[in-house]
């Protein structure tokens, strides 16, 4: 029986330049914190090995502090053993990184930089497929098929890359055979690269990143606890929560009569959780001018609660009626201007951009009119 934790794509050192303020720093720090959380899980679950299936570092040249602090943290969690596999972000092409790691790595950190079996424990062989370059152009796991191990030895594969053309990096020609586990007689194939957890088959899994770094996957980060009972047994896998930040995309579909502020409030996570939440609110459906203004205001009110709150209202169609225009003015020049903007927004002969601008201008006129009226 062998028990280990499967994780990948830590992307230590990622800087999140697309955010402002102290959020990037918090996100970066959260990534470093994964080491401690994984180690804690390992200790709690009685697993002595943590397999990191690639992209441990975000770049080929992580800053020295990132590298050194990560190794120091890993050393601190001995006797838990860490196996680090080169991924596409930190491939072997980054020779400087790997030679430095080799020089600095503590005893409980194993660098899986050769396609050669590593004995994890008695009767357990790890078959790593390190990425030699950023884009190897071939299936690095192929060698596992021919790798001989003693009879009865548990075979654990460790690889990084896409199994279909759905790589995190877009189209990829170097896909790992989806049936590698079967072909190579692996008891478990631990994969990295895909940031969301994914079960390929009973013996093949992506753990996903333990700490998400984008809105794409919509699931909180986790690591996999894998328990291999024996050669013939299927692996027992369970997910362990690891993320400190939630990256959520919430769809909010509105109907014309809906009160958008109330609808939004119903969707938002509990206030205590919001500080650790990056939220993208995608509004769709239909809304009146007034509702739309109310939504914008409600979002503006909620923003300080969150690590990040964004409203995407591109999918929200504004319905405008005479009553709405009446709220601007019943007659006169203001009404004329509003009517002209509305006509332009609904004019199919105009480009989508122009219509969008006219719509926005109308909404703006509406909000100004309300402000002046009050």
């Amino acid at each position, binding site marked *: 029986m062998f028990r280990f934790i499967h994780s990948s794509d830590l992307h230590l050192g990622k800087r999140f*330049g697309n955010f402002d303020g102290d959020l990037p720093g918090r996100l970066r720090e959260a990534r470093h914190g994964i080491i401690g959380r994984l180690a804690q899980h390992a200790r709690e679950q009685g697993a002595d090995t943590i397999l990191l299936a690639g992209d441990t570092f975000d*770049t080929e040249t992580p800053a*020295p502090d990132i590298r050194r602090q990560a190794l120091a943290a890993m050393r601190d969690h001995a006797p838990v053993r860490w196996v680090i596999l080169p991924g596409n972000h930190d491939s072997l092409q980054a020779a400087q990184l790997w030679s430095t790691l080799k020089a600095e790595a503590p005893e409980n950190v194993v660098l899986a930089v050769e396609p050669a079996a590593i004995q994890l424990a008695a009767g357990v062989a790890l078959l790593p497929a390190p990425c030699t370059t950023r884009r190897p152009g071939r299936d690095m796991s192929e060698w596992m098929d021919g790798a001989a191990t003693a009879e009865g030895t548990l075979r654990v594969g460790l690889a990084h890359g896409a199994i279909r053309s759905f790589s995190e990096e877009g189209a990829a020609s170097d896909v790992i055979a989806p049936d590698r586990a079967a072909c190579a007689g692996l008891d478990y194939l631990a994969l990295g690269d895909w940031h969301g957890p994914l079960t390929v088959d009973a013996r093949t899994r992506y753990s996903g990143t333990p700490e998400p770094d984008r809105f794409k996957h919509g699931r909180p980060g986790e690591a996999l606890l894998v328990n291999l009972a024996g050669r013939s047994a299927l692996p027992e896998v369970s997910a362990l929560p690891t993320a400190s930040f939630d990256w959520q995309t919430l769809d909010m579909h509105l109907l014309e009569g809906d009160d958008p502020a109330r609808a939004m409030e119903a969707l938002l996570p509990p206030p205590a959780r919001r500080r650790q939440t990056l939220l993208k609110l995608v509004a769709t459906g239909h809304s009146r001018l007034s509702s739309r203004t109310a939504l914008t205001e409600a979002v503006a009110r909620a923003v300080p609660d969150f690590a990040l709150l964004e409203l995407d209202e591109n999918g929200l169609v504004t319905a405008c009626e005479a009553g709405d225009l009446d709220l601007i003015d019943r007659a*006169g*020049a203001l009404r004329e*201007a509003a009517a002209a903007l509305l006509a332009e927004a609904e004019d199919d002969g105009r480009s989508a951009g122009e219509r969008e601008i006219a719509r*926005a201008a109308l909404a703006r006129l509406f909000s100004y009119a309300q402000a002046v009226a009050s």
Partner: protein
Amino acid sequence: MKISALRLFNIKRFAGRGVAIEGIGDGVNVLCAANEFGKSTSFEALHALFFQPYSGTAGPVRNLRPYSGGNPLVEADIAHGDQRFRITKQYYRGGFARVTDLASGRLVAQADEAENFINALIKGGPAGPAGLLWVRQGVTGIEKRSNAEEDGEKQVRASLLESVQGEVEAITGGRRMAEIMRAVAGELDKVVTKRGPKAGGRYATAIEARDRLAAEEARLAADVAALREALDKRASAQKRLAELDGADERRERQEAVAAAQANFETAQAQGERLKTAEAELKLARERRDVAERALDAFRTALQKTTDLAAPLHEAERRRDEAIDRRGEAAETIAKAQAAADLADSQEQEARELLARLDAALRAREATERLAESRQRLNEAEAKRGALEDAEAQLALVSIPPDAVEALQALEIELSGLRAVAEAARPSVVVAYVGDARGEVTMDGTPLAEGRERSYDGQAQLIVPGIGVISLRSNRAQSGDSRLEKAEERQRTLLASMGVATLAEARARQAQAQQIDARIRELRGSLSSLAPAGLAKLREEVAAQALAGAEIVEPEGDAAALRAALTAAERERSEARLALREAGPARGRAEDAVVAAETALATLRAEQAHLEAQLGPADQRGARELALSEELADRSRQAEETQVRAAELRAGAVDLVSAEAALKRARSVQSSAEQQIVALREIVAGLNAEIRARSDEAVEESWRETADALSAAKLRVAAFEKEIATLQRLSAALDEARTEARELYLKPVMAELGPLLSLLFNDVSVTFDERTLLPQTISRNGQEEEVERLSGGMREQLSVLTRLAFARLLARDGRPAPVILDDALVYSDDERIEKMFDALHRQSRDQQIIVFSCRQRAFQKLGGNILAMVDWEP
């Protein structure tokens, strides 16, 4: 409402009296009067009547009061609808207001009720529509005026427009519109200016951030690319280094070098041997050639010796002959020389004899010539002495020829003059009586009987026995000056000639002529004796005396001597000819001897050379044999050596290619070593670069910057959308408001348009929404601010605007008179005429009252002419 009469009393300059303007009718009424005639006073009074309460003492009221004080009174007759009223007001003491129905004479209202009645007439007091129809002198309604007045008039216009068009607020959006526009403009102002993003604004900052990040991103991307390239380079360098530095590779390279070296050394040894053999062969061949040449030379010399014997003998014979001939020639020449020498001496002797004879003859001749010359000289010298004497005499007696003539002429003139003088002198004649003859003397001289005697000045007659008679002539003696001058000239002339009388002069003249003749004769004989002069003759004589110093006696016969000389000369030339003929013969003979000797010497030298080559004659056969044997021996040796060299050459290895192979092997080895060194250096360099960049974490920075850049781009895009939205909104609001304004001002524009077209071609006016007055006009497509127009145009525009509002009022059922008080001061006559066309056109249903001081201009403009008449209340 229409006004039909105006009367005033005790107002301003009309202190204590009154004037009335009666008969104001419909249409255009014109009151033309000079300044200070009371027009404006009437106007002000009328204005006060309608707009100043009777009880008030406001400024306009105070202005009405004359300096002397008193109570101003104003009265007007008006028609309102079908009714006619008289309105009367008096201010200050006993002030009242009163409205009377003219038809019935009934008092309609008085005091405050009367004021109310008036207010109702003009609807709303000074702010009522009627108020704006007053156009005062110098007030065009467009110039700066007091705020209260401005506002009042504006309210009038606004109320009028509102009454015909509706609330301005409702139409233009009013305050809300303005606030929204201000908010929009404020938002836009924060981010953009007319020229683009506002410096320091959020939009500009976002754009700057984006650009800065883009540059940063590009720089970092390049850094990352450089790092990756360095990594790749190092990987390939290390791979290549491993290959080159491998033990097998090294051993292979070393073995290749060793093999090539051995091969090269073998080739080199073979090459040396071949070189030696070839040198030997060359030597052997040379030795053989030497022997061959010695034998040939020996045989040739032998042959030549034999051939040379005959020519040598012949040459000796020729030399002997030549020497003999030379001896003969020398002898012949010696003889000829002797003969020539003899002839020379003979000739010389004959010549000397002849010369001596010639000299003797010439000396004798000279002696004779000298004697003759001396004789001639003596004669000449004698002649010369005579000549000099004669010349001396001549000088003594010579007289200039014309002097005698002049003297003669003077004599004649003098005689004439004396005769004249004598005739004029007093004279005395005595005629003696008895024998008293000659007793009387005059100045001592007796006076003869009957002889007239003249005297000068005074004379004394002594008459013996009687006494002395003094005669005195008392006349001036000036008449005698010519005579005196002539006598003076005669005296001078005679003195110059050294004679006393003319006769003497003539005698001297003859004497001079004789001497002159003698001189000429003497000169002739002197020149024949000494043609070149006496001095020359003396020199000749001296020279001849010197030459003929020695006298030699001649010897022999000259002819014989001459013949002997000729003969001697002939002999000498013949002897010389013979000698000259003999000379060349000797030269030729000598040349022949030299040639013969030379030929002989040459042959003998050749002979001696050959003898030396051949050696003693008895050993010559043995020597030839020895030489031929040596040749045969050496030929054999050379053939043997050649065979040996050919064998070696056939077996030789190519040294050049062996060396090339060695060189190549070595260069392979050394270049591999160099490459290893170079690669190590490259790797070391790349190591440093990679380490540096890795420590800088460029890739992290790059990814961070790329993320930030995309965020910045989104932000800029959001700003762009925001700006577009705001600009769109601003444009929509502007457009709507402009349309609304046009709609609001439409009625007055409709009235103004036709009026404008009467005065101006193609002119349109826009109104200021705030003041409801013309703001800009556009002419020929050019917009102009009304404030910048000429005064004439401004006042015309003002009047037309008022007329337009008046029409609007009339249309609204509230007709009001338009009163123009000198409102056209800047306009020229032509414009005024056109203005009046407009007024007349307007006046069909409108009362217009015009006050003007421009009598002449307004005279022909038609309308109802008003006059001011005295009036008492």
